[in-house]
């Protein structure tokens, strides 16, 4: 083993506490910066995902704003039905809906996939569901690991099982054809499992890419007009409020507006999804700004740390170095020894960060930059070391 490496290891061992704290600091810095980058990366991935799924400039979502005077009734239901039917039957439009919900499952053992949900004053353990129309599956190109998707022409019948496709994580707990019941005695039957890592982009709430591993997918049936809560599982209104409509031709939105303008209760706003991604972009820029600010703070902190640490190390060990210089060492030897100490600590932090974080490439990039930074931060101490006259070092002990 090279002599200076041995000395460097000896130094680290002798000043364990100091080096452990240094190690933890470097590791935290690497992990923090990695986390910053991976957040930025995730947002970018959302845009990419979205623009790959469909043309965002031709996609709209509907928001319904109540007019002052609420009328409701059959007239309004008819407008919603017309709107829904027009979109659904006309191939100028592709629409899909995703409706988030929770169900409290009765007869399967509570598992780690259930989450705490507030229900009034109390909390319940419930499982996340996402009701989706068949187009949702096509648009986001979801794939199954087992079974099949529910039928596009599925119709809700209150005393029959609702077919469900379960996220990948459920495969540990359930099998195809398993049946479970929620607290309202609604029965569900497992027809398929998604592949690992399936995702979609939440358009109307601008939350970015959402994983489906822990989600139960259920079908939507909005086919009936009368007694909708008996004959379908979602109302037209719910569907419309949660749907995304993709147009073949941008002008086709006019026909939808024409249907909607007869409403006495609501103002139907057709919002471009582009606006939403614009919002996402803006929020990303803002968070990048905050991250950059944090990054600069962290980097200043880290460099100061290294500068102070190495200068302090040289000051404290001046005597020891001079003893080595008596014995035939040069200042280069000493500089190598200081470098090796920093390098060993860096290497350890790098390896541990790799193990802890799953963003290997980002960790690698960040670590290399941190190493360069550490070396830059060592410069003042190297300059101090090389400017020092040996006779100066000897005089200090007097």
């Amino acid at each position, binding site marked *: 083993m090279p*002599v200076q490496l041995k000395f460097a290891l000896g130094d680290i061992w*002798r000043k364990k506490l100091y080096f452990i704290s240094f190690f933890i600091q470097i590791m935290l810095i690497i992990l923090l910066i990695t986390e910053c980058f991976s957040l930025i990366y995730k947002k970018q991935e959302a845009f990419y995902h979205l623009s790959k799924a469909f043309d965002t400039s031709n996609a709209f979502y509907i928001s319904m704003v109540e007019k002052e005077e609420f009328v409701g009734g059959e007239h309004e239901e008819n407008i919603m039905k017309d709107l829904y039917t027009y979109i659904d039957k006309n191939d100028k439009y592709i629409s899909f809906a995703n409706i988030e919900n929770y169900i409290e499952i009765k007869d399967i053992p509570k598992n780690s996939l259930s989450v705490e949900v507030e229900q009034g004053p109390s909390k319940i353990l419930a499982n996340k569901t996402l009701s989706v129309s068949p187009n949702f599956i096509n648009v986001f190109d979801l794939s199954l690991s087992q079974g099949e998707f529910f039928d596009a022409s599925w119709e809700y019948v209150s005393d029959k099982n609702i077919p469900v496709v379960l996220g990948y994580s459920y495969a540990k707990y359930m099998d195809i054809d398993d049946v479970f019941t929620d607290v309202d005695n609604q029965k569900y039957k497992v027809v398929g499992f998604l592949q690992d890592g399936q995702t979609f982009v939440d358009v109307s709430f601008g939350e970015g890419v959402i994983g489906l591993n822990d989600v139960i997918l259920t079908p939507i049936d909005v086919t009936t007009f009368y007694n909708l809560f008996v004959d379908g599982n979602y109302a037209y209104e719910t569907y419309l409020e949660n749907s995304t409509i993709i147009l073949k031709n941008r002008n086709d939105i006019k026909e939808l507006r024409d249907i909607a303008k007869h409403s006495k209760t609501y103002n139907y706003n057709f919002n471009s999804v582009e606006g939403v991604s614009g919002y996402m972009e803006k929020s990303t820029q803002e968070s990048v700004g905050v991250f950059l600010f944090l990054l600069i703070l962290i980097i200043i902190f880290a460099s100061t740390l290294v500068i102070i640490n190495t200068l302090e190390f040289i000051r404290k060990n001046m*005597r*020891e170095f*001079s*003893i*080595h*210089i*008596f*014995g*035939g*060492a*040069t*200042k*280069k*030897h000493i500089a190598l020894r200081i470098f090796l100490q920093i390098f060993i600590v860096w290497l350890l932090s790098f390896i541990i960060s790799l193990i802890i974080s799953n963003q290997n490439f980002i960790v690698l990039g960040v670590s290399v930059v941190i190493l360069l930074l550490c070396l830059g931060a060592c410069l003042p101490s190297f300059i101090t070391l090389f400017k020092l*006259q*040996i*006779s100066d070092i*000897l005089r200090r*002990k007097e």
Partner: protein
Amino acid sequence: MIELKGISKVYNKSKPNEVKALQNINLKIEAESMLAIMGPSGSGKSTLLNILGCLDVPTAGIYKLNNQEIQSLSQGKLAAVRNRHFGFVVQDFALIEEYTVMKNVEIPLHYSKNKANKKERILTLLDTLGMKEKASEYAYNLSGGQRQRVAIARALINNPDIILADEPTGALDQEMGEQVLSIFKRINKEQNKTVLIVTHDDKIAKQCEGIVNIVDGKIY
């Protein structure tokens, strides 16, 4: 053999705190001699020793070691000369407190080409200095006299030709001081090493073969 011709050393040249530590020093030191260097505090004794030992370079003049000019060698070459030809002993012993006796003596060997049977060589040397049984003791557990003997062992381990001792007895009591001096005499007589001792003590100086007197950076 050492030969100095017109050696000067100026610290902080052309600055307000300029110090002319050595002025036009001419000195010949024969191999295998034992000399004392004397003079008041601040007269330049340590500076002279540092230049002789290649720890520092002169501002002007020629320094010949065994007929080779070495005043303008690179740092790396000077370190090699230091390692091969010189052993240093200083007043405060300059031991690394957290090292054992063994590891302290070993230091010059790390920078030497001759690393063969380190351990035996160190133990044999420590034995001649009566320190063998302390080999695995930590430096902070030793008395002053013991420390200086460890420092002498370290100065000798690479088998240098010249021992430079800067007030080696300054931190020791009378009896210890005499023991250390007798070690230097033995080294000079039995191992034929050149020994240069900076000292304030007349009794020590009298036991040397000659005395170099320095006042205000000049030899008298």
